[in-house]
């Protein structure tokens, strides 16, 4: 009898889905490569234009503010806080505005620089929050499963439960969309912890553990999230549906986020039939807050 290894080799090989590889595959890949080049050039041009316009606008605004007025005494700029308060050298810094107890603050996503800056999706990646507004992070958490070529990024800072403090959303890019993780500030001194799923009624189809949801809109399938109003307040509705016909069943799992325990409790699940055109789609905002990072260009975003 063949060994288990040989049996596995044979059965997995026999079971692998097969593609013929179309005759014109080379041509199609060539076109795809050209599209990538064009998209990169367009992006570069757009970026340059934006920078030039922003620079000109800034000079104009500064000229208006400072031009006709008396000179303002120059004070030495405050020294930047080393490494934004992280206890190690950092690089690949991304930031987004957040709100803590109603006050504007900042969240950062950074990489640890050890002997140089690791590539996107490589090395150790962290999310940190400047809680008191002094320019240094007060709470950090390590991000996991940040894979090349894009890696983990800032995503959004929605205040899902309406308590005046943002939940911190980070993203990890995949082939056709993003996986989103949510973090909550709890305790004193503050700690930044992943929001955990609780499903006491066992009615949801979410995996236990850290809350994650997809931000995907491809040819046959859509997944995303939005804030929904429930009798007990604002909650997160994670939805998903197939797009194989003109109508679809939109499955929604509603989660109530408890800020002090960083728990997302499944309170309801629904399936609603509706035309595909009327179904919710992930876009450039989450609960009214903008999407940051490469996902800001969604759905044309998960490209390196």
């Amino acid at each position, binding site marked *: 009898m063949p*060994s288990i290894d040989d049996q596995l080799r044979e*059965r*997995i090989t*026999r079971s692998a889905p097969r593609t013929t590889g179309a005759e014109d595959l080379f041509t199609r890949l060539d076109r795809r490569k050209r599209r990538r080049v064009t998209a990169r050039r367009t992006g570069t041009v757009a970026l340059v234009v934006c920078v030039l316009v922003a620079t000109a606008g800034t000079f104009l605004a500064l000229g208006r503010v400072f031009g006709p007025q008396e000179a303002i005494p120059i004070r030495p700029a405050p020294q930047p806080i080393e490494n934004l308060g992280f206890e190690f050298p950092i690089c690949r810094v991304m930031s987004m505005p957040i709100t803590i107890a109603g006050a504007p603050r900042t969240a950062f996503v950074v990489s640890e620089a050890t002997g140089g800056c690791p590539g996107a999706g490589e090395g150790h990646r962290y999310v940190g929050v400047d809680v008191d507004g002094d320019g240094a992070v007060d709470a950090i958490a390590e991000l996991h*499963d940040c894979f090349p070529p894009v890696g983990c990024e800032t995503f959004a800072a929605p205040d899902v439960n309406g308590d005046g403090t943002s939940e911190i959303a980070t993203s990890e890019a995949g*082939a056709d969309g993003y*996986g989103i993780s949510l973090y909550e500030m709890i305790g004193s001194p503050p700690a930044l912890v992943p929001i955990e799923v609780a499903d006491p009624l066992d009615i949801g189809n979410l995996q236990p553990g850290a809350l994650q949801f997809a931000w995907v809109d491809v040819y046959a399938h859509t997944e995303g999230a939005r804030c929904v109003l429930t009798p007990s307040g604002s909650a997160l509705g994670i939805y998903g549906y197939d797009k194989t016909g003109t109508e679809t069943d939109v499955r929604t799992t509603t989660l109530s986020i408890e800020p002090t325990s960083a728990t997302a409790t499944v309170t309801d699940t629904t399936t609603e039939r509706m035309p595909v055109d009327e179904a919710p789609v992930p876009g450039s905002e989450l609960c009214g807050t903008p999407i940051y990072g490469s996902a800001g260009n969604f759905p044309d975003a998960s490209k390196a």
Partner: protein
Amino acid sequence: MDEVELRSFLRERYPRLVGAVALVTGDLASAEDAVQEAVVRAWERSERGAQIASLDRWVAAVAFNLSRTRLRRLRVERLARPRLAGPTVQEAPTGDRVDVALALAALPRRQREVAVLYYFLDLGTAEIADDMHTTEGTVKSQLFKARAHLADALALTDDDQENTHAEHR
């Protein structure tokens, strides 16, 4: 990598790499998309003068990365069963294919990747460790667990049940 090399690669190696990614994701269409994207990136790198030691391994690693997110895994696992009979699968799904697909889908993503790289693409544990940026010991551990699960799920036996550890190359 010139056009002749690339055409040869697409003809001879591309289908197998698509099969490998599809075994991991459970979705042939997205596997093709991921492998095509990886090939295009390899092509661009090559045109910029970069050397790629093993195109197969490079494309496989990038395609796996492209298709890898935890949420994507959840979605693919949930959709795996109906999609096995999807229009892009040329052969009608057989009972054995469904069994193997379900057994693979039940594995954690890393174990599934290791199993596919080892059993389907015939890579050694050292090569897998190199591609996955981890240690060979970790790969052997993942492979051992994957092997035990798959053998159990597919009711595989051999003459020497004691010798169920992966024979690491």
